[in-house]
C-alpha cells in the first residue's frame, strides 16, 4: 500500500470523504482517548468527471430499520442470488432484474471502484427550478441600478423553464404578479406586520376559495392553471416582461428624513417569500434570493431602529446585553429558516452595504437551508457582480452546479454510532439504532436535510465508537459507513448518490502507531475547527479557546514523545506536525476572534467556514502566502512577519481576501516607473506575476474574494499584517537584532511563544 497521504488523497477524490482517523481505534474508551473524535468531512456531491450515473433504482436492504444500499462491501452469493447487508447482516434476495448476475457479470454497484455511485430515479412529477428574487429598494440610486442590471443579466443565465418570481421591499413589501399583460400588478403588504403563512396565502389569493358557482356562468374547467403561476412564471415566457419590470423598479419612494435610516421591511419580505413558496411549491428546488442593502429597520426581524443616532449592535453591545432587537429578530429569522428548510427551499442572502446589514440575525436563513451568504460593500462592485454571476455557473457537463432538497442518510456498522453533523443542514430527526446519545453538532439523527448544495458543499460528520473494550473486534475487521444522498439535480432529475467506505479497526494499545500514522491532521484540524466554531455560536469566545487549547494539549500529551517535565524533549510525529500550527492560526482567525470584526462579519466568516471543503477551510484557517522576487521562482513562504521583505512581492490568500503586497523596495521601484522602461522588463514581469496568480484564484472562488492591492506602509497592508505570525513585534524587534522582516504592532503571542507554552504544558506532569 502506498503512503497514507496517497490513500487519503485517493479516497477524497473517489468518495469525497476525509476522515480524521483512517484506522479506527476499536473501543469506545480508546476512541475517547484519541482526543480528536472519529469524524469525517463529506462532500456529498463532489464532482466526479468519471462517474456516469446509472439509470436505475438502488437495491435496498429489506430490513425496515436498515435499508442500506447494496454496495461493493456486501457479501454476495451469486448462486443463490442473495446478498448480505454489511451493516445489519440481513440476507436479501436480489430483485428479479438482477437474475443474470454472476462473478463476471456484476452490476456497477458491486464493483470496488464504485464505492461511490449515483443513481437516477424516476419519482414523482418533475417541477422546474424556482428562483424568487427578494429585492431591497432602499438603495442608493447607483447601487439599485447595478443590482437591477445584475438581476436582468441573471435572467439569461437561468434555465429556460425555471420559474421566477419577484418581491421588492422597502417600507412596504410588493409581490409582483408577472403574468399580466399591459398593466403591471403587484400585491402590497405592510412592512410592519408579521403575517402567518395562511394569511399571506389568503391575501395573495393562493388558497383556493370555495367559490360558489355563479348560476348562469359556465363551469370552470377543472384544469385551471396552477394558481400560483401569477407570481412564479417560466423565464422564457416573461423574461421581457420581467426585464422591463426590473428596469422600471424605483427606489423606495417614501421619504427618509435627515438622521434616519430608510424603513426596510426585510423580515416581512422574507416571510412573504417563504409563505409564497410554502403555499405553492413545497418540497421542490427553490431559491429565495434576498438582496439587501441595509439592516431591517421595522417590523418583525427588525435589527436596528430607524434613527441613525443609535448605531447597529456591535459585539460590545451583545456582550453587554445591549442589543435590544437581536433576540427577537433572530427568533423571527430562525422560524423562517426552519419553515424554509421544512419545505426544502433555500434562502440566499446578498448583503451589500458599508455598514452591517443584520447578517448576525439572518444568518440562520442561509445556514440552515444551504443558501449562499454574500457580503459586500456595494452592489456596484465586481465582488458582488461576479459572485452573483457565479451562482449560476455551470459544471463540466453544462449543468448548474447547484442541487436542491437533498437528504443525507448515514448508516454505520454496529460498532459505530452517529454523533452529529456540522454544515448547512437541518436535522430530519431520524432516530435509529445507529444514532448516538452524545451529540456533536446537529445530532440525534441519522438523516439531515440539505436544502441546497453544490459540488463543494462539505459537511462534517462526527461518529462515536461504541464497541466496548471487552468485546474485541476480530482481527482484520473493518468498520463501514454508508452515505446516501438523495437530491434534486439542477436538471430537476431526482438522484441518489451512495458512498460506502470502510476502514480498519486497530487496537489502540497494541497498534497505536498504526492509528497515529493514519491520522489526517488536515481533516482533523478542520473538523476540530468546525466544532470550535459551532460552539462559538452559542458559547463565550474565551471558553471556546480554552476548550480548543485543552484538546490540543491533550492531543500532544497523547501522541507527543517527550520526557516528563522536559519541554525541550517534546517531539511530534510527522502526521501531527502541522496540527498545532493550524490550531494557532485558528485561535487568531476571525471565526473565533470577534475583536475587530462586526457581528455581521463574524457570521459571514463562520457561514463560509461551515460549508467549504477541506482545502478551502484550511486556507481560511491558515492563509497561504506566496513570495515573488528576483531571487528565484515564486514560492510559498511562511505566514510570518519575517516573510515581509523589502524586495519581495507577497500574495496572500485568506479565502475572503486576496492581498498583493509590494515590499518597500519594490514599491519604490514601481513609483519610479521602472516597469515602464524597456530595460527593466523583468521588473514588469515580476509585478505582473502575482496579479496573474491572483486572477486565477479570483476566477474560481465563490464567493469572490475581496481583492486588495497594497504596498509597504499602505493602509490596506493591515490585512496582511493581521494575519501573519507576529514573530517580530515592537516588543522584541530590537532583541532580534538585525534580522530583517516587518515588525507587527501587536501584543498577540507569536507562534514560537505559543509552541513553547504548548510544549511546557504537554510535558507537565501536573496536568
Amino acid at each position, binding site marked *: 500500500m502506498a503512503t497514507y497521504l496517497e490513500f487519503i488523497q485517493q479516497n477524497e477524490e473517489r468518495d469525497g470523504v476525509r476522515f480524521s482517523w483512517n484506522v479506527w481505534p476499536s473501543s469506545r474508551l480508546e476512541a475517547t482517548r484519541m482526543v480528536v473524535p472519529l469524524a469525517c468531512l463529506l462532500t456529498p456531491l463532489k464532482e466526479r468527471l468519471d462517474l456516469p450515473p446509472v439509470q436505475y433504482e438502488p437495491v435496498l436492504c429489506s430490513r425496515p430499520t436498515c435499508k442500506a444500499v447494496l454496495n461493493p462491501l456486501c457479501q454476495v452469493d451469486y448462486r443463490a442470488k442473495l446478498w448480505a447487508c454489511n451493516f445489519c447482516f440481513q440476507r436479501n434476495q436480489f430483485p428479479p432484474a438482477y437474475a443474470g448476475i454472476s462473478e463476471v457479470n456484476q452490476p456497477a454497484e458491486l464493483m470496488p471502484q464504485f464505492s461511490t455511485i449515483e443513481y437516477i430515479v424516476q419519482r414523482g412529477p418533475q417541477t422546474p427550478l424556482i428562483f424568487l428574487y427578494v429585492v431591497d429598494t432602499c438603495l442608493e440610486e447607483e447601487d439599485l441600478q447595478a443590482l437591477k442590471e445584475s438581476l436582468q443579466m441573471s435572467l439569461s443565465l437561468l434555465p429556460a423553464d425555471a420559474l421566477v418570481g419577484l418581491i421588492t421591499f422597502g417600507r*412596504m413589501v*410588493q409581490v409582483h404578479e408577472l403574468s*399580466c399583460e*399591459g*398593466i*403591471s*400588478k*403587484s*400585491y*402590497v*403588504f*405592510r412592512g410592519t*406586520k408579521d*403575517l402567518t403563512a395562511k394569511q399571506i396565502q*389568503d*391575501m*395573495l*389569493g393562493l388558497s383556493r376559495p370555495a*367559490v360558489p358557482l*355563479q348560476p348562469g*356562468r359556465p363551469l370552470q374547467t377543472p384544469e385551471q392553471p396552477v394558481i400560483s403561476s401569477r407570481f412564479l412564471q417560466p423565464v422564457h415566457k416573461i423574461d421581457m416582461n420581467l426585464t422591463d419590470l426590473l428596469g*422600471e423598479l*424605483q427606489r423606495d*419612494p*417614501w*421619504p427618509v428624513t435627515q438622521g434616519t435610516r430608510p424603513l426596510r421591511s426585510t423580515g416581512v419580505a422574507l416571510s412573504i417569500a417563504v409563505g409564497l413558496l410554502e403555499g405553492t411549491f413545497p418540497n421542490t428546488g427553490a431559491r429565495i434570493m434576498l438582496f439587501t442593502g441595509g439592516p431591517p429597520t421595522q417590523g418583525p426581524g427588525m435589527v436596528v431602529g430607524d434613527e441613525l443616532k443609535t448605531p447597529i449592535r456591535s459585539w460590545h453591545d451583545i456582550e453587554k446585553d445591549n442589543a435590544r432587537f437581536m433576540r427577537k429578530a433572530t427568533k423571527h429569522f430562525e422560524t423562517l429558516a426552519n419553515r424554509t428548510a421544512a419545505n426544502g427551499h433555500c434562502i440566499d442572502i446578498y448583503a451589500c452595504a458599508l455598514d452591517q446589514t443584520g447578517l448576525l440575525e439572518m444568518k440562520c436563513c442561509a445556514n440552515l437551508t444551504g443558501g449562499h451568504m454574500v457580503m459586500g460593500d456595494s452592489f456596484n462592485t465586481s465582488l458582488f457582480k461576479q459572485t452573483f454571476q457565479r451562482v449560476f455557473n455551470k459544471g463540466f457537463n453544462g449543468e448548474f452546479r447547484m442541487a436542491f432538497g437533498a437528504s443525507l442518510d448515514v448508516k454505520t456498522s454496529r460498532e459505530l454510532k452517529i454523533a452529529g453533523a456540522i454544515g448547512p443542514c437541518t436535522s430530519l430527526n431520524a432516530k435509529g439504532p445507529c444514532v448516538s446519545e452524545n451529540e456533536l453538532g446537529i445530532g440525534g439523527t441519522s438523516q439531515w436535510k440539505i436544502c441546497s448544495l453544490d459540488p463543494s458543499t462539505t459537511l462534517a460528520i462526527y461518529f462515536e465508537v461504541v464497541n466496548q473494550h471487552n468485546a474485541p473486534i476480530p482481527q482484520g475487521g473493518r468498520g463501514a459507513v454508508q452515505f446516501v444522498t438523495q437530491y434534486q439535480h439542477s436538471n430537476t432529475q431526482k438522484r441518489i448518490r451512495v458512498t460506502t467506505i470502510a476502514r480498519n479497526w486497530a487496537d489502540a494499545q497494541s497498534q497505536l502507531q498504526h492509528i497515529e500514522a493514519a491520522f489526517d491532521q488536515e481533516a482533523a484540524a478542520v473538523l476540530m475547527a468546525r466544532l470550535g466554531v459551532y460552539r462559538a455560536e452559542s458559547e463565550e469566545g474565551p471558553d471556546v479557546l480554552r476548550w480548543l487549547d485543552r484538546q490540543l494539549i491533550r492531543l500532544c500529551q497523547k501522541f507527543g514523545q517527550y520526557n516528563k517535565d522536559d519541554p525541550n524533549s517534546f517531539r511530534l510525529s510527522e502526521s501531527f506536525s502541522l496540527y498545532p500550527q493550524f490550531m494557532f492560526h485558528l485561535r487568531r482567525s476571525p471565526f473565533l476572534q470577534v475583536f475587530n470584526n462586526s457581528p455581521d462579519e463574524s457570521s459571514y466568516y463562520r457561514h463560509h467556514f461551515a460549508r467549504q471543503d477541506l482545502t478551502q477551510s484550511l486556507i481560511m484557517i491558515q492563509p497561504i502566502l506566496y513570495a515573488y522576487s528576483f531571487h528565484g521562482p515564486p514560492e510559498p513562504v511562511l505566514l510570518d512577519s519575517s516573510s515581509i521583505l523589502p524586495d519581495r512581492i507577497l500574495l496572500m490568500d485568506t479565502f475572503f481576501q486576496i492581498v498583493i503586497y509590494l515590499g518597500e523596495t519594490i514599491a519604490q521601484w514601481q513609483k519610479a516607473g521602472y516597469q515602464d522602461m524597456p530595460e527593466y522588463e523583468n521588473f514588469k514581469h515580476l509585478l505582473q506575476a502575482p496579479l496573474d496568480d491572483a486572477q486565477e484564484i479570483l476566477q474560481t472562488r465563490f464567493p469572490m474574494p475581496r481583492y486588495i492591492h497594497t504596498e509597504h506602509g499602505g493602509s490596506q497592508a493591515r490585512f496582511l499584517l493581521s494575519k501573519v505570525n507576529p514573530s517580530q513585534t515592537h516588543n522584541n524587534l530590537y532583541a532580534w537584532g538585525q534580522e530583517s522582516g516587518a515588525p507587527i504592532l501587536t501584543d498577540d503571542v507569536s507562534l514560537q511563544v505559543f509552541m513553547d507554552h504548548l510544549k511546557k504544558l504537554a510535558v507537565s506532569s501536573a496536568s
Partner: protein
Amino acid sequence: LGQPISTQRLPTQVPGFAPPPSSTGIGPSSYPPATGAPRPPTMPGPPLSGQTVAGPPTSQPNHVSSPPPPSTMSGPHPGPPMSGLHGPPPPTHPPQPGYQMQQNGSFGQVRGPQPNYGGAYPGTPNYGSQPGPPPPPKRLDPDSIPSPIQVIEDDRSNRGSEPFVTGVRGQVPPLVTTNFLVKDQGNASPRYIRCTSYNIPCTSDMAKQSQVPLAAVIKPLATLPPEETLPYLVDHGESGPVRCNRCKAYMCPFMQFIEGGRRFQCCFCSCVTEVPPHYFQHLDHTGKRVDFYDRPELSLGSYEFLATVDYCKNNKFPSPPAFIFMIDVSYNAVKSGLVRLVCEELKSLLDYLPREGNMEESAIRVGFVTYNKVLHFYNVKSSLAQPQMMVVSDVADMFVPLLDGFLVNVNESRTVIASLLDQIPEMFADTRETETVFAPVIQAGLEALKAAECAGKLFIFHTSLPIAEAPGKLKNRDDKKLINTDKEKTLFQPQTTFYNNLAKDCVAQGCCVDLFLFPNQYLDVATLGVVTYQTGGSIYKYAYFQLETDQDRFLNDLRRDVQKEVGFDAVMRVRTSTGIRATDFFGAFYMSNTTDVEMAGLDCDKTITVEFKHDDKLSEDSGALLQCALLYTSCAGQRRLRIHNLSLNCCTQLADLYRNCETDTLINYLAKYAYRGVLGSPVKTVRDALINQCAQILACYRKNCASPSSAGQLILPECMKLLPVYLNCVLKSDVLQPGPEVTTDDRAYIRQLVTSMDVAETNVFFYPRLLPLTKADVDSDSLPAAIRNSEERLSKGDIYLLENGLNIFVWVGVNVQQGLIQNLFGVSSFSQISNALSTLPVLENPFSKKVRSIVDMLQVQRSRYMKLIIVKQEDKLEMLFKHFLVEDKSLSGGASYVDFLCHMHKEIRQLLS
C-alpha cells in the same frame, strides 16, 4: 315697514262637531287617524272639481263662492250646507260681520262639514248617535285656505323686479322662489344667509313665549348668479386679518372706529381694540373711515380674507387638494356596466376639475383605486409607460402602498391615466367576486391624503352591503317591522360606531367623502353614510341602477359633483353680538367642540342651519349681529376666510317678530330639527312635538297679536300663513311617515339629504312644484303658472310636470289630445307611451322643445339631476306620483291640507283655552 297682518279665520269645525270649548272630546294625540275609518268617496276619489258637494266648482283661489251667512261663526250648525266662508282677495272687500279684515292673502272657507272628518276623532260626542242619515258632506273649500302658489306668485310679482339692497338692518328678503338680484351694501346676501326671523325678540322670555325658533340657514359658498359679484379677496398682509382682541371677530362694516380711527370698538363684544398701524385710516365727519368704500370688509356684508400661515394646519401652508376616485369592481358593478361607464366618463371629466379663478389648469391632483374584497391602487406616474397596479389585501390594517405616482396632475399623466381607465373594465370583466369592503376604502383614501399631506375628496362608487371580512363589516339589519315602534330610531342610527371614529379621522385630515351608491338591495345607507355626512360630503343613490335609464342622471350628478366649487378642511364659526348665542347646528359636518363646525369639504350646495338662543337681553337700538366666518382651503390650495355679516332688528313687541318671519326658513329649520329627532325618539313623538310647537307659535300670535275675535276663528300671521300646509308636508314626508314602498335606505338617504338642504331646496322638496305643461306658452321662455299639489287640480286632458328636487314626474291625463302626445312622445296614442322612458324624446316641434327646455331649466336649477318619470293617469305608477300631491291625503296616512288645517286649528284653540 309695517306689513299688514292678514288674519285668517275659520269657523269652528262643523255644526254638530264643535262642542263648547270646555267639553272637548278631541284629543290632539288622536290625530291623524290611525285606521281608515270609512270615508266618503269624495275624499280619495277622482279629483275633478265637480265632485265638491257644496258651492260651485272653482279653480280660482280666493274665489268667492257664496256670501257667507253672518252667523256661521257661532255655535254648531245643524244644517247643511255649511256655507263657504271666504274673504275676498282684494283688500277692498267689505268687512263682514264676524270676519275680521282680510287685508291680503286667502281666506278660509268652509263649505260644509267634511264628511266623516270626525272619524278622525273617535271621541266626537255627537256623531255616532246622530239619528237619521249622516249629514250631507260639507267641506272646507281648498281654494279658501292659504295657497302656497298664491303666496309665491304674489311675492314674485311684488318683489321680483327690484333688486334687494342689503343696506338696511333687519330687512326680510324676497322668498326663495322669487328671482331677484342682490346688492350687497353691508349685509350678507340672502343667498348666503336666511333667517327664520329678521326681527328677534329682545328677551328670552319673549322668544320662549312665541316659540318661534331663531335660526339662520347659512350657505357659505353659495353660487351667485353671474350678475352678482363674488366676494372680494382682502389681504391684510403678514399679520393677518384685523380682528377684535377679545372675541376675535373679524373686521366688518359694524365695527365702530373711535378716537380718530386709532381704535375700534367691537360690535359683538364691545371690546376696544387698537387699530394696527398699517391699517390706520382717518375718519370723516360722520365717523366713517375715509377708505370706507375702498375696503370690502368695511362696506360689504360678504368678503374673503387671505389667511396667513397661523390659520393653517401645523403652521404650514396647505398643498393643493386631491380627488381620489374609488371604484367598486365587484361582480354587480361590473355586470351593470357601471365600471365601464365611470371609467369612460372620468377620461373626459378629469379635464373639468375645479379651477381657481383664471388659472389655466386645475391644481387638484387625482388618484385611482378600485376594490372588491381587496383594494387596488394605481401608480399613474407620468414617467411610466403603463400604469402599475398595487393590490392591498390586508384590509384589516389599511395602508397606502405607494406615495409617488398615486396622486398626479391630470395633464402630466394624461396618457397613463387614459390607459388605466381603458384597462380597468377589461381587467375585471371576468370577476366573480361579489363581496365588498367599505371602511377600508375610506381608510385607504384617508391614508393617501395623509401621506400626501393634503386635503381632498374621495369619490366612492359603491354597490353593496360590505359583508367581506374587514373593519366596518356590516350585516343586514333592515327590519320594516320596527316602523312605528320605539325601536324605529335604530334604523336611522349607524350599526356600529366604527364609522363615527373613522369620520373623525377624516375630518382631521380634511378628507371629504362623496358616495355614489348603486344598490340592488339594502346596503345600510344610515351606516355607510356616516362618514360622508360628517365630512360634509354628498350621497347619491341610484337604486337598481340600469345603464339605459340611469346613466344620464348619474353622469350629470357626477359631472356636477366633480366640477362644483368646493372648499376643503373648513372650519366655520358663527359669532353673535352679546345677548344671543349660536347653540345648535344642523347639517353635514363634524363638531369637536360646541362652537366650531368642521367640514372636511364644503361645496357650494351645502347648507348649515344654526339655531340661536338668548343668553342675555338685546336692545332695539343696537339690534343683533351675526358674523359667520368660514376658514377653508380653496381648490388651488389657498387658505382663506370667508366672512358673512348680517344685522337683524330686535323687538319688544311680538307683533314685530311675527311680521318679519320667513316660513320657508322656518320649515327648513323644523324639518332638520325633526329629522335629527328621529335618531333619538320615536317618530310619533317627533311629529307630535312639531305639531305642538307650530300650534304654540300660532296660538301665541292669536293671543298676543291678533285683534280680539271669537275663539273659533283661526287667525294666521301673514308671514306664516303657509306654516300649516308646509308643516303638514314635513309631517307626511317619507322620513316621518313612510309609505309601504319607501325602503329603510330611502328614508336614511332622504334624512341625510334634507339635513344639508338650503331653503329653496327644502321648499320644493316638501311642497313640489306642479306645472301644467299644456298651459305653457311655447313662444315665451317663462314657465307656466304653477298649480297646487292636489289631485283635484289635475285635468284629464292635460299634461303636468311635478318636480321636488329629486324627481321630475310628467303626468299624462287619459284624455290628452293625440296631437300633444304625438308631439311630446312621438307615439300616436296614450296607450303607446312607454313609462320606461327616462328622457323625453327629442322631437322637432314647439311643444316638445318647450317641454324639454322646461325640464332642462329645472335640472339646471337643482343641485342634483332629477330622475324623470313618465306617469300615465290610471297607471300603476300613478300611486307613486300621487304621493307627491301633498295637499291630498296620503296613502301612508298623512292628512290632507284641509284636514290638517282643521286639526291645527283645534290644537291652537286648545292651547288658547
